[in-house]
């Protein structure tokens, strides 16, 4: 039986995966991957609630915006990563602990 809970559980699994990736990984790109996962779990929730609870399209639109933001974020984040890599020759997150170069 596919219920709201099923989606929510999947969403939870995605969120937790993203969370663990964000915390456990030291690679900036990997962290970005975690962020993507978390964003997706949020988007899935919106879509699931649209389907099971209030039946209007607003949830899809929010999910859509999430995807847009995720894309923007990925673009900017990866740009930063590249730039950071150029400066430090490293994408280790602990090397990025200073406010000043």
């Amino acid at each position, binding site marked *: 039986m596919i219920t709201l809970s099923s989606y929510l559980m999947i969403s939870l699994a995605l969120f937790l995966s993203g*969370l663990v990736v*964000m*915390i456990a990984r030291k690679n900036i790109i990997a962290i970005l991957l975690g962020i993507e996962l978390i964003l997706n779990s949020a988007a899935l929730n919106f879509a699931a609630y649209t389907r099971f609870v209030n039946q209007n399209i607003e949830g899809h639109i929010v999910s859509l915006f999430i995807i847009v933001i995720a894309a923007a974020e990925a673009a900017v984040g990866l740009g930063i990563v590249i730039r950071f890599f150029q400066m430090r020759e490293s994408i280790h*997150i*602990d090397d*990025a*602990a200073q*406010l000043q170069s």
Partner: protein
Amino acid sequence: MDYTIWTIAPIVLLPFFAFVINAFIVKKFTKLAVAISCAAILGSFGFATRIFSDFVFGKYAEDYHIHKVFNWFDLSYGSQIFKLDMGIYIDNMSAVMLFMVTGVASLIHIFSTYYMAEDKRFGRFFVYMSLFTSAMLGLVLSDNLLSVFIFWELMGFCSYSLIGFYYEKEGAGNASMKAFMTTRVGDVFFLLGILAIWSVVGNVTFVDIYRAISDGSFNSLYALGIPLATFAGFSIFMGTIGKSAQFPLQVWLPDAMFGPTPCSALIHAATMVAAGVYLSLRMYPLMEIGHLTTMIAYIGGITAFGAATIALVQTDIKAVLAYSTISQLGYMVLGVGVGSYNAAFMHLITHAVFKACLFLSAGSVIHSLHDHHTHEHVQEMPRMGGLRHKMPFTFWAMMFCTLAIAGVPFFSGFVSKDRILGDALLMALANKTYIVPMVLGFGGALLTAFYMFRMMFLTFFGEPRDKDLYDHTKKEKFSLNRNFPLLLLSVFTLGVFFSGSLTGQGFIKVASEKRYEWFKVLITKPKVEKFASYERQPWGHTDIKSNFQLSEAKYDYNYGLSAKEAHHIHHWHLIGALISIFIAFSGIFIAYMMYIKKAWNPGWWVSMFTRWYRALQNRYYFDDFYIGGLIKKGLLPFNNLLAFIDMGLYDRYAIDGWEKVNRAFYTVSGWFDNIFVDTIAVDGTGASVRLFNVVLRMIQSGKIQLYFMIIVFTLVGFIWTL
């Protein structure tokens, strides 16, 4: 002329002013100072003679007194009365005493002008002598124990100064200190006695003490659990023991011979040491009611005999005389103890005369004998001998005195000593406890005769043992200041001046009783009951001479007893006299056999009694015991210990220890302040900020994952609260 204060006080004041004046001028005008001293004492002698003649040769009354008082100071305030009166008190005894003291002192002053003339401190000697004489006379004139004590101590000071006269010598320092300290032991007791009496009588005038005794005020009063009369009497008698060099405080007197010989004659033979006996006589009623006479007799007997034994082995001429002085003082005390009141006093007077003469003669001998090698005068008898050819006047003077002290009949010493011994014999018969003092007394008499003649024989007879010394000695020429005092004093060693009878006990009556038995008539035990209604006169009062004829005393041959009882006494007195005579001659005979005939060898005796001989030479080890034992092993270590406890322990730990306690306190409080107040409370505020800062800085690590975790947990917390 009647007696006002201005005819009595000069007796004391003349020598005193001489002292004051001389103290200032002695350095520059030595001769003048000496003259002033001599003039002063002769002046005193004049005033004293007047009193003496009035009391003795006048139509005297046996209980007549001159008693004048003035207020020394008065502390009364409101109802609290405290007055201290000082006064002059002259009765028969003090009149005789005054005469003796001034007379002997005058002669000794005169002799000193010969003896001390070459001394570098000629003048100073007279300064001390004047002070001493005035103190002694003051003592005699005193009407109360406190002023007796004052003059007593002043004499002690003079004695101290004169013993330490040759202060270059280390020994003089020791001797003077020893003399002062030993007598001071007695003096402290004396003061205690004064205090005890004061607590009963409220006064220490002789008159009031007698009155209190007759009132029975002393009965049933106790001090420290002892009957008060005994306590006070004993304390005062301790003063006598100290001053009169009685056993066990006799140690100082032989050492006192460090002083110049005339001062030995005056102070340590004739007057000051006799003052102790004088005090005992004055306080005789107290001793009596305090039941102290037995003890006094024992002390007197022991002293008389013990000192005589020591005198046997002395070779220093002055040491012999010193021990003989102790011994004779012992006889006086024995006399006090056996109730032979006037004989004791008579012995005091006769002894003063002949002992002064003996000392002066010894001084004359010593002064003549001058060792050319050591430039010192010779005092050792083994270096003398045959000196009677060189100094005949001295020899005869000394011979008379020796006869007197040895107890040869017709001499004063026999009169007085025999009476003491006779009374001792009587007492021993009546009371067995007195047997020991009696035997000691007779034994001492034998020894006295022996050692005195030993001294005479060794000094004046036989062949000169130190030829060099003998040849350098000039032949004595009669000179007024050297020989006159000797000869005059030696004249007064004749018994007739003191008693009309041969022995003073009625053995052979020479003349009518009253005129010639003046001593027995004048000097009687104070009859305390007579003082019950006695009034004293104010200072300015004039004692009318005609009052002296109030009631004539009679010489009572039978002592106021029945003829039968008196016969018993006379009987035993006679036996005593015979024993004395026998003893005296035996002593002389032994000495003769030993030192003139050389039939008996004294060395044999020495070898027979080696241990005793050594004990005698060491003065029965008294000095060793006192100085070596009590002081060096007892007092000084104790002092050092106490001083160590005081500074080394008490001060260092108990007082400065507070510093340690304080340090502990301030360490703890400082620590507390530092740790709790400053570090924890004050710095803790800062530290907590810093801790916060450390934590926050740890958070603010720039590590995004950490931020993320914080966000997550914050979020969790936030959700949890929903």
